[in-house]
């Protein structure tokens, strides 16, 4: 029973957002790729802060390196994300997130770099506990959500508009639906995650652009190594359809299909604090046209979990003890 609890805690501390970063240079929040979680139980709050460094520098055409360009460019970003989740009832969890870019930089040697920074997108998700069976160790949690382009867009430096690829916010709304299924088998737990994201047209003062639909499928293997230490191995496929621009013109060099391996270590400390570290390693990349491809990303997340029902029970017990003394 305790093992089941620990396993569920592992997932509880891992939120998932929906975004796009496999196409290395897109506006808005990147995909925070740690393992997805089932819905929270009633009156449980989780708050987490994630940090992510991402680096890209290799151009791809289809599934191979494209080395014919007479220069080398790199793109990198330092990003933080605050996430809050609350179990409103046993069947409904409300999740929110807010992203911030310390920098989102695009560099070409010998030329001043482009650097965007500031608030990214906010998001609100409703996650449902559709089915839970503790005997079978099976849970199914569908989610719907929306991203809001609350942050910096149309950012300028010296009165010159930064390219869309380094704008911190998406510039348009995004709608997302996903489903998460987890099942325990002996000492190992398996989980699956499928997500769809629709990006609305970016129609700002200066940009007219629509990112293609995004599909993500992931499989997780979880293993409890020792005491509070857990290992997750995630295989994830991110597919994005081609973008469109003015007059519904399709942007040929914009779609991609990337398979990632994301190993993740998580440690649970006292008082419901959790720390996890993980990295995104692309195993296979396919890009239409010629595009700068995803390189790698390293991330860390610190999470605090508060169980208000347990707190209340503890306080009541203290009061009773005080009275009896």
């Amino acid at each position: 029973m305790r093992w089941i609890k620990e396993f569920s805690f592992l997932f509880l501390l891992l939120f998932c957002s929906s975004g796009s970063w496999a196409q290395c240079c897109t506006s808005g929040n990147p995909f925070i790729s740690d393992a997805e979680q089932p819905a929270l139980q009633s009156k449980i709050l989780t708050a987490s802060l994630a940090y992510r460094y991402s680096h890209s520098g290799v151009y791809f055409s289809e599934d191979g390196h494209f080395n014919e360009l007479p220069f080398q460019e790199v793109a990198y970003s330092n990003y933080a994300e605050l996430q809050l989740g609350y179990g409103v009832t046993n069947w409904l969890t409300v999740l929110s997130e807010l992203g911030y870019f310390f920098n989102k930089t695009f560099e070409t040697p010998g030329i001043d770099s482009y650097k965007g920074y500031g608030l990214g997108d906010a998001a609100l998700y409703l996650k449902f506990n559709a089915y839970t069976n503790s005997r079978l160790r099976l849970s199914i949690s569908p989610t719907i959500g929306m991203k809001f382009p609350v942050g910096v867009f149309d950012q300028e430096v010296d009165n010159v508009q930064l390219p869309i690829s380094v704008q911190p916010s998406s510039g348009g709304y995004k709608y997302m639906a996903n489903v998460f299924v987890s099942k325990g088998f002996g000492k190992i737990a398996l989980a699956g995650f499928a997500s769809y994201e629709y990006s609305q047209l970016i129609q700002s003062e200066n940009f007219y652009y629509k990112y293609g639909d995004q599909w993500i499928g992931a499989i997780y293997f979880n293993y409890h190594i020792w005491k509070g230490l857990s290992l997750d191995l995630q295989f994830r496929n991110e597919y994005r359809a081609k973008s469109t621009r003015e007059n519904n013109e399709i942007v040929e060099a914009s779609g991609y299909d990337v398979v990632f391996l994301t190993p993740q270590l998580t440690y649970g400390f006292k008082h419901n604090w959790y720390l996890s570290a993980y990295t995104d390693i692309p195993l296979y990349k396919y890009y239409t046209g010629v595009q700068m491809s995803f390189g790698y990303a390293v991330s860390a997340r610190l999470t605090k979990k508060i169980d208000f029902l347990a707190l209340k029970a503890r306080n009541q017990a203290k009061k009773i003890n005080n009275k009896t003394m």
Partner: protein
Amino acid sequence: MRRIFIVLSIVAFGLWACSKKNDATPSDSIKILSLTSSANPVMAYDTSVITVEAMGANLQYGWVANHGRIKGSGKSVKYSACISCMGLNTITCKVFNDTGEVSDTIMIRVTPWHTKK
């Protein structure tokens, strides 16, 4: 009560997200004389120099490309675009001072990249 809280949260987010405006005022004391490019069409990853000539006092210059990148600042900048920005792109030049702002656009076609021989 909980449902109301959720709906209100969504509405609040939506309202917050919908606050974009352009408060530039047009000026009669600024006149753009010309807006020219050194190359048009331009191959992906190549550069075209775009220059604006304008009349007015204490002028400042702003640049926007709907696709592609602008390097530099002032009355002359460099425009380049990657392969994903191929097509007919619009570069907007805004000339402004204390009296207000005027703007003009130039269309530049970005063509497919190929190796130069």
